[in-house]
């Protein structure tokens, strides 16, 4: 048991180191100069441009050699300091990201979990039912093949423009201020629904199809036939099949949960929902090294953490994993 998790931890540690290094490198290889961009937006007569440039270079810590910047980056990282955003100067990156994270969690957690649960249940239900298989399955295929942004635009057009039921963009109305009141909560929910729906529908289709195929496979497995031959009730057979079929789906869920803070990039851009996805786009467009690094760091940590958690979950839900570990130690 200890060896199993020890090895896993080592691998995660190495992955983290490499991923963060790449994360640090990528923005710096992009063409352009973030400080020059920032200063060039000044409309005043900047007489002392060079002076200001030097000053800001030092503020951002870009005035030292690259290897030093890299070391400083790691040092700051362990202090929980991700630097200052260039795009939203002088807000610290951690603050920018922390402001965005709640929106992501609020949008993606329900969308991912609900679509996973509903999709699996529905897929299992639809398998081997001729009528459902023939009508609903194609819809599932269409849904899962739909690009998020396309579905998003479609939903926005139908429910926002044509029917006018839901707002098109933002996290809450322009005429309300954030506070604990029904008006505000209602406004937030109305703005949340379309982005949620577009993510939910696409994922729902994917899970349902995956589950349906898995169940059919499992129902054809020897143990199912053996159970049936023994005269077990149909419900029991399907229950066993479901427990086996859910395993790959859990792996899929873990990957989904890993990108919980950034998994809705295009959806967020379509609805200009103020989550990490929107931030990443803006950071790229504005060459904000530090913000981009911070966003990616969150994704890296998210994916690694989710994988780690799933390793635990596997031990619990899949007896074979436990057996394997026993065999190893024996």
């Amino acid at each position, binding site marked *: 048991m200890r060896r199993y998790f020890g090895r896993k931890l080592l691998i995660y540690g190495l992955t983290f180191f490499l991923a963060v290094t790449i994360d640090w490198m990528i923005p710096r290889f992009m063409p352009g100069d973030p400080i020059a961009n920032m200063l060039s937006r000044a*409309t005043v*007569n900047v007489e*002392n441009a*060079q002076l200001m*440039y030097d000053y800001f270079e030092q503020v951002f810590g870009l005035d030292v050699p690259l290897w030093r910047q890299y070391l400083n980056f790691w040092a700051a990282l362990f202090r929980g300091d991700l630097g200052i955003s260039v795009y939203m100067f002088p807000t610290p990156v951690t603050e920018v990201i922390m402001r965005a994270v709640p929106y992501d969690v609020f949008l993606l957690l329900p969308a991912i979990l609900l679509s996973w649960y509903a999709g699996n249940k529905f897929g299992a239900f639809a398998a081997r039912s001729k009528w459902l298989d023939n009508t609903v399955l194609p819809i599932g295929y269409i849904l899962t093949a739909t690009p998020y942004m396309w579905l998003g635009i479609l939903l926005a057009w139908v429910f926002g423009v044509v029917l006018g039921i839901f707002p098109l963009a933002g996290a809450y109305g322009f005429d309300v*201020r954030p506070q604990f009141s029904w008006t505000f909560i209602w406004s937030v929910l109305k703005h949340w629904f379309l982005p949620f729906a577009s993510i939910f529908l696409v994922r729902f289709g994917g899970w349902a199809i995956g589950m349906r195929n898995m169940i059919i496979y499992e129902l054809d497995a020897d143990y199912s036939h053996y159970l049936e031959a023994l005269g077990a009730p149909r419900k029991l057979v399907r229950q066993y099949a479901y427990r086996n079929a859910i395993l790959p789906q859990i792996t899929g869920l873990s990957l989904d949960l890993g990108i919980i803070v950034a998994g809705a990039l295009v959806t967020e851009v379509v609805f200009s929902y103020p989550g990490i996805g929107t931030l990443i786009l803006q950071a790229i467009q504005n060459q904000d090294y530090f913000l981009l690094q911070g966003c990616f760091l969150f994704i890296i940590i998210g994916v690694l953490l989710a994988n780690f958690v799933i390793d635990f979950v596997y031990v619990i839900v899949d007896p074979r994993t436990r057996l394997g570990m026993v065999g190893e130690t024996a």
Partner: protein
Amino acid sequence: MSRKSFTLVGLLVVLSLVLAACQQPMPTEVIATQIVTQEVEVTREVEVTTEPVEPEPTVVPSPGTYERSETLYVSGAAWGPPSTWNPFQPGSLANTTGTIGNVYEFLFHYDPMTGEMIPWLAESGSWNEDNTMFMVTLREGLTWSDGEALTAEDVKFTFDLGQEYPALWFSPMWEYLDSVTAVDDLNLEFNFTGEPLYQEFSNNLYNIPIVPQHLWAEKTEEEITVGANENPIGSGAYLYDTHSEDRNVWLRNEEWWGGDVFGMPAPRRIVDIRFASNNVALGSVVQGDVDLSNNFLPGIATLANQGYVDTYFEDAPYMLSANTAVLFLNTTQPPMDDPAFRRALAFAINVDDIVNVAYANLVQAANPTGLLPNLNDFVDQDVVDELGYNYDPEQAAAILEEAGYTMGDDGFYQMPDGTPIELEVTCPFGWTDWMEAIRVIAESAQEAGINIQNETPDYGAWNTALQSGTFDMTLNNWAALSNTPWTLYNLLFRHPIQEQMQSGNFGRYEDQEMFDLVDQLAQVPASDVEGMQAVCSDIQERMLTEMPMIPLWYNGLWAQWNSGVWTNWPSDADDTPNTLPTTWSGYWQLGGLQTLINLEPVPVEE
């Protein structure tokens, strides 16, 4: 309803009655109960009516939703989320437009429509006889929004910050500013030394925001130069209310000193929105959800003609002009190092197509001098008549052939030594109007026999090429609407030439005679109009002969509005205000605030 719950409800009713009775003064006689209750009600009513009579506190906590009839919704100023309210932060104030102008104020405003400086915090300002001292008298009764008095000491403190911290943008003026003295609470003296740049100083008078000494004196250098300055305390007509990623909300300062002098701005609240896309901005202003949009919205001319939105002019160009789009030529590269080629190029660009096709008539072609219409007084018409340019491919061909360029087999001109000419014109990707404009530039030049291709790198790459001089030709418009022609010439002929040209002369045009002329202009006192005209005339003659860059058109002061909630918007008609209808940062002091003061609410239909 079941029996059980009915009893419960009955019990509750009785209980609440008892409780209510307990709260009222207990009557001594049972008969008096009714009367006493009535009395209590009456006094409550009186209390309610007296409430509004009491003076309201400076910051009234906002309700959950904003009353539409007292709120002005605007958009088009911000390009990113609000992040700083530091009035000295040049890069990001557009995202909190109003920080300078509506919260922090200036000594003067400038009205580009009349060309006059408007005393603002200052009541008056005047020079001594030999132009070595500028005397300012402040208005009486100026206050900060926290109730403290705004005095000459605050103004002195603000200007002194520039002396102390070189990272502040106005710090270079201390090269010729010797000292600022507060004579008393209302009077200040600015003492000059050496060769003052009078033009810059007059420009700074309406661009340096005055900050409160009693709050800023304790700030560290870092807080002053790069701090975010959340919850700003200024002296202006609006107070910071709240913000989020896509909006800023400003609340009118009911105690504003200027209410008696200029009049109170009509909207009690301003909600400044950053839309993710122009389509949403367009839909919002057409539907009236947004009152004033300062976004560039292509095709607005059609909507204006159909009456969906209003604009400053009823017909083309619809918009006022905000700045000049200049085609910078990299004069270090052949053939752009040849004045003949540059002049030929000026004749080869079809500016009319840019105006009519790329902008659908929303802009005007620029004067060949590049000066905006508000500076017409400084254009030497004789020079323009003699040396000006217009679209004329034949003239372009004539100039090229006279200079020895020859037509190659591919239909394009070659260098006199026979090498082919292949050039690129650039602008940042995503700036759709400019992308269309450089397409017109490339096409019309190709028709005239000059091989130019249009390219659109992303902003970062474009900016790097611009400042390090690794482009062939590119568009730029970084000279703001200003009270002096020096602002434009300072952009066009910035010197000395350095490795990085961050704020002008991107084409690295090296010409000492021109540099001397611009320096000379900078040192003419702003009151000496004739002196300025004389130098401008020399600059224009040299510029149009050498043609180091080509002014093409005036970018518009994009503004379209819906008069559903607010009315009395500016226009060129006689019976309306003639101020700038804009919310852009840096334009509040050019008439933007005056526009808000002139607004009137549309009476609500019962």
